[in-house]
C-alpha cells in the first residue's frame, strides 16, 4: 500500500473525487496554477483544467458565497480557505446561508459544499496562522465539522465530506501535514512514512462521518481528543504510564456519542484535550455530555486541557500549546481524584 503524507492523502481524495464526479470543482486562493500554499491541490488544474480548479480573488466571503451558488446549481464545490484564521469574512455565508438553505427551502435547494482549511498551531504561525475555530462551527445547526488526525482518515473523511449532501467544515491540523506530532517540539520531526496510518489505499475509499475511532485501548481513563492532540495524548499516556483509552473523535458534528459513553462508562474517568481556547470551547460540550450520560460511573471530575484563553502567541507558542506535560498532569489528577 502506498505511503502518503496528509497533504498527499488530501490531494488524492480531491483527485479521486474530481475524477469520479465531473460536478466536483475546487477553488481558493493560490489553489489553481500553483496548487495551494500547502500543495494540497498541486497538479489538479493541469489534470482537470482551469474551469474545475482555479485561483480566486482574496475574498473568503466570495469563495464560500460563490460555492453556495454553485451548489444550488448542482455542482459540488470543495473550496479552500488558506488558513482557518481567515474564514471569518465567510462566516455569515456559512452560518446564515450554507447551513440553513436545505432547512429554509424545505429541501428545494441544498448546499453540498466542503470548506477545507488548515487549522491549529505548532508552526510558529502567531495569532493569524494558528487558530482552531471548530467550536464556532459546531454551534451551527446544519453543518458537519470534521478534524482528521492522520493521512488515512484525512483521505477517507474528505471523500465522505465531498460526497455528503450537506455542508462540511473540514479542519486540517497543519502541524500534522508532514508527520504525527506529539508536542515534543524539541525532538526531530517524525515523518508519516514511519507511521502505520501513513499507509493509504491509492483508490477510492471512505471513512464515515460521525464515527470516532479508539486510537489506544485502555482501562483507567478516557481521553477525548482530535487532530494533533491525539498524539499529544498518546505521548502523555506513555510518559505517565497511565493506561488511558484515547478516542480520536474525527467528526465533532455529528458526534459519535455512543463511543464516548461506552468508553467513559468503562473507565469512569475522562480528560478532554483540545488546542482551541478553553471558554465555550468544544470541550465544554463534551464535558456536559459526559456528565449527562455517565454521571453515576464517574470516579473523578471531568478534566479539560486546552489552549489558554489568550490569542495564540508567537514567542510563547510552547507555553500556550497544551503539550504532553500538561495532558500528563491532567491524567494524574484524574487518577488521584
Amino acid at each position: 500500500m502506498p505511503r502518503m503524507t496528509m497533504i498527499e492523502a488530501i490531494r488524492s481524495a480531491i483527485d479521486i473525487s474530481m475524477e469520479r464526479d465531473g460536478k466536483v470543482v475546487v477553488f481558493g486562493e493560490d489553489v489553481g496554477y500553483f496548487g495551494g500554499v500547502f500543495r494540497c491541490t498541486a497538479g489538479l488544474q493541469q489534470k482537470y483544467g482551469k474551469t474545475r480548479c482555479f485561483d480566486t480573488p482574496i475574498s473568503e466571503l466570495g469563495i464560500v458565497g460563490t460555492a453556495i451558488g454553485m451548489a444550488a446549481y448542482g455542482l459540488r464545490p470543495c473550496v479552500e480557505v488558506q488558513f482557518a484564521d481567515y474564514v471569518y469574512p465567510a462566516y455569515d455565508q456559512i452560518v446564515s446561508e450554507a447551513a440553513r438553505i436545505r432547512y429554509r427551502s424545505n429541501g428545494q435547494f441544498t448546499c453540498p459544499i466542503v470548506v477545507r482549511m488548515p487549522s491549529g498551531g505548532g508552526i510558529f504561525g502567531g495569532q493569524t496562522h494558528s487558530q482552531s475555530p471548530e467550536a464556532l462551527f459546531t454551534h451551527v445547526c446544519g453543518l458537519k465539522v470534521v478534524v482528521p488526525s492522520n493521512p488515512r482518515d484525512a483521505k477517507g473523511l474528505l471523500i465522505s465530506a465531498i460526497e455528503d449532501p450537506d455542508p462540511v467544515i473540514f479542519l486540517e491540523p497543519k502541524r500534522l501535514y508532514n508527520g504525527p506530532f506529539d508536542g515534543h517540539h524539541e525532538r526531530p520531526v517524525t515523518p508519516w512514512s514511519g507511521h502505520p496510518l501513513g499507509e493509504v489505499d491509492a483508490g477510492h475509499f471512505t471513512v464515515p462521518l460521525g464515527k470516532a475511532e479508539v486510537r489506544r485501548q485502555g482501562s483507567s481513563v478516557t481521553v477525548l481528543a482530535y487532530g494533533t492532540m491525539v498524539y499529544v495524548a498518546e505521548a502523555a499516556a506513555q510518559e505517565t504510564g497511565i493506561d488511558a483509552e484515547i478516542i480520536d473523535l474525527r467528526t465533532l458534528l455529528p458526534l459519535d456519542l455512543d463511543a464516548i459513553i461506552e468508553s467513559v462508562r468503562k473507565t469512569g474517568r475522562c480528560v478532554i484535550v483540545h488546542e482551541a481556547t478553553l471558554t465555550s470551547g468544544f470541550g465544554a460540550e463534551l464535558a456536559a455530555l459526559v456528565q449527562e450520560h455517565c454521571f453515576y460511573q464517574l470516579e473523578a471530575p471531568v478534566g479539560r486541557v486546552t489552549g489558554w484563553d489568550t490569542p495564540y502567541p508567537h514567542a510563547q507558542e510552547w507555553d500556550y500549546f497544551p503539550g504532553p506535560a500538561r495532558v500528563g498532569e491532567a491524567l494524574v489528577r484524574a487518577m488521584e481524584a
Partner: protein
Amino acid sequence: MMDDFPPLSLHVPEPAVRPGGTPDFSNVPIPKAGSVPRPPVDVDPRDIRDLAFSIIRVLNREGEAVGPWSGLLSDEALLEGLRHMMTLRAFDARMLMAQRQGKTSFYMQHMGEEAVSCAFRKALEPGDMNFPTYRQAGLLIAGGYPMVDMMNQIFSNEADPLKGRQLPIMYSSKEHGFFSISGNLGTQFVQAVGWAMASAISNDTRIAAGWIGDGSTAESDFHAALVFASTYRAPVVLNIVNNQWAISTFQGIARGGAGTFAARGLGFGIPALRVDGNDYLAVYAVARWAAERARRNLGPTLVEYVTYRVGAHSTSDDPSAYRPKDESEAWPLGDPVIRLKNHLVRRGVWSEERHRQAEAEVMDSVIMAQKEAEKHGTLHSGGKPSVRDMFEGVYAEMPPHLRRQRHQAGV
C-alpha cells in the same frame, strides 16, 4: 504649521427633507424619455460609462413609448404585464390586511416597485435562476407561481411549501427560478454569481440574476459579487433596486460620494445601466439587453432601477417618523401601474372602464386564492405544519442528536 489647518469635522449625509418639510426631488435629474441611446450588447463597457449616470426611460409623460429602447413588447404582452402588476398590488393589499387581522406575523409590500420584478421576469427563460430579496414577489406572480402557495407560506399553514420554517414572504421555488430568500441582506448577491459561474463551468445556457437593495450595496457581499462576476465574466444580471429608502435611512448613506449606485460597476469594468424602475417597458428592455449579454457569454451587467418605496419597509415600520407623508406623491417617476395603463389607453387597447373592471377581477382572483389558502389555516388558527417538521430537513439524514431532541420534545 498645524495652525494652518482648521479642526476636522465629520460629514454625515442628510436627506433633502424630513417630516414636516416639503418633498423635494430636485436632486434627482430625470432625463427625457427616449433620450438615452441603446448600445449593441457587445459594446465595450468603457464606451457607455455615461449610462451609469443617466436614466433609461421609454414612457414619456403623454404615455407614449419613445426612443431606441421601445418597441419590444406586443399589446398582449403589455396587457399581461399590467395584469401582473395589478395582481401584485391587490395581493399586497389583501396580505397587509391579513397581517393586521392577525392571520400572519409580518408582511412586506411592493407599492411603487411593481414594474421592477414583474417586467424583469419576462426577460428570463425557463431554467434561469433569480436570487431575490424580499421585495421581488413579482418574479413569482409574473412567472406563474400560484398565489395560493404564496399565501400558504405567508400564513405558515399546513400547506406551507416551506413547512412553517421561514418568516412570511421569504418564498422559495426552484421550479419557478426563485432561490430561497435568506432575510440576511446582501448574501444572495454573490451566490447568484456562483450559480452563474456554475452554469458557465457546466457549458449550460442558463443565466442567473442577483438582486439587492440600495442600502445593502454597502454589504461586503456586494463587493465580492462584483469582483467575482468581473473576474470570471459570470453570466449574471446584477440588479440594484434603488427605492430611495433602507428602512428609515435614505439612499445617500449607502451611496456616499458616488454619483449613483450603478457607477459602482464602472471600476470593475462591468457595464452599468440606470433605468426608470417605474417604467415597465424600460425595465423590460434593459433586462432583456442585460440577459442577452449574459446568454451570449459577454459577462455580467449591473443595473440600477430608480424607483420609490411608497409603502412602509414592512408591517413593523412607520415611515411618517422619518420622511414627509406626501413624499411619494412628489416622486418624479410616477406610479408604474398608472403609467402602463395610460400607455395602453393611448395605444387604443385599454380604457378606464376596462381598467376598473380588471381591478375588480384581479381582486376577486386574489380573494379566491386567499379563501383557498385559509382553508389550510392561518398563523394562529386552523391547520399548522407539524412540530415534527421542525426537526426535519436540518440535514439530509437526521443525526442522532436531533433524533434524541425530537424524542425529548415528545414528537
